[in-house]
């Protein structure tokens, strides 16, 4: 305790020489499932993540085969699960884009598709 300022300088130096880390997202699973085909247009899309989410900073958007947004605009978050209601969007490839903030403050994003009909 003779030189507390030196000790705190050492802490700072040690912390600066460590590697900076970037976050990577993990979507656990989705309903409809990623890449799968469902017979009729789903009423909602639900995403399950590996960590709990912050509702205010977590969003999903869904577009249909014509590129029109068919989600209600307001995602519902409960723990590590996020859902959004869909309007009828017809058959074809649906695109899901998500961006979430986990409770431990990692922001991650991603996208996937699923097929409707055929």
């Amino acid at each position, binding site marked *: *305790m003779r030189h*507390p300022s030196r*000790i*705190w300088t*050492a*802490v*700072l130096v*040690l*912390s*600066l*020489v*460590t*590697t*900076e*880390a*970037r*976050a*990577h*997202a*993990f979507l*656990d*699973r989705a309903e409809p499932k990623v890449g799968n085909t469902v017979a009729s247009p789903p009423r909602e899309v639900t995403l399950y993540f*590996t*960590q*709990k989410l*912050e*509702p*205010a*900073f977590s969003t999903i958007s869904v577009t249909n085969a014509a590129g029109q947004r068919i989600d209600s605009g307001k995602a519902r978050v409960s*723990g*590590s699960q996020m859902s959004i209601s869909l309007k009828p969007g017809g058959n074809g490839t649906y695109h899901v884009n998500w961006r979430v*903030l*986990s*409770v*431990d*403050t*990692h*922001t*991650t994003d991603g996208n996937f598709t699923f097929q409707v009909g055929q």
Partner: protein
Amino acid sequence: MSWSEAGLGDGLIAVRAVHFAATANTLGALIFRSLIAEPAFGATPEAVPVLAAQIRKLAWTSLVIAVLTGLGWLLLETMQITGLSLWDALTQEGLSTVVEVTQFGQVTVVRLALAVLLAISLAGERVWPVRRLTLVSALAFTGAIAWTGHAGSTAGDLGILHLVSDVLHLWAASAWIGGLLLLMSLLNSSARHQSAAWRKLEQNAVSRFSLLGIVAVSTLVLSGAINAWIIVRSWQVLLATAYGQLLLVKMAVVALMVAFACVNRLWLTPQLAATAAADASLQLARNSGIEFALGLAVFAIVGALGLQHPMIHP
């Protein structure tokens, strides 16, 4: 990654590392006082004012640094979450939004309130019988860090186990690493005074710290194993990811600390009762200093670990 993003990430690692070290020293000083110094004072009343002043000085200095770095951590996280610049984060409701709607922001506010409570009880304990409040608020201030990290975001029943394990991990690390500076100080004072009373105090304190160390290391190993099992789950992840590799480096540094602690416990502590006790005291103080420096390296690694997204295999 832009330069500003990299700079923000480096800043977060630095501010988190200093915050964790300062928080651990705050709690460690108060645990040292309650479990080591005060019970060992008995026959050495002349040591009381010297050590009591050093403990209070360390607790106060560390608490001030912990509060300042805690505020810095909140500000940098706000910039990272909202994408705002420093000025905009302060002026465009970025900070207030993060505080109001995120768990990290809410826990930070609670921790700042606990820091104020701790400061009030530290300032008032000469007047009021509030020592227990001081220790309890320091335990809460430290343990609440668990809710800001990976443990706070683990879902379900596993999340409760993760939080309990992380809180115990934080307390054990604080008790061990946070007590080392005061142990060094006590050993150096004893070597300077070279009186029978100081030697008795030193033997008593070292014996108590040794027991505390065994409990702390056991708790760290058990809680660390639980945390690693929840987050990592596989050898492949441990060896192949940046998170796993950083964790391995942390474990290696902790193992080195334990090796020094074993030398202290098994080799140097028995020599304190011998004729060359002053030499043993100084060597114990030196080894404790090395342990503390390694402990700071661990905090630096933890500063970076918390920013990694752990690869959890479902």
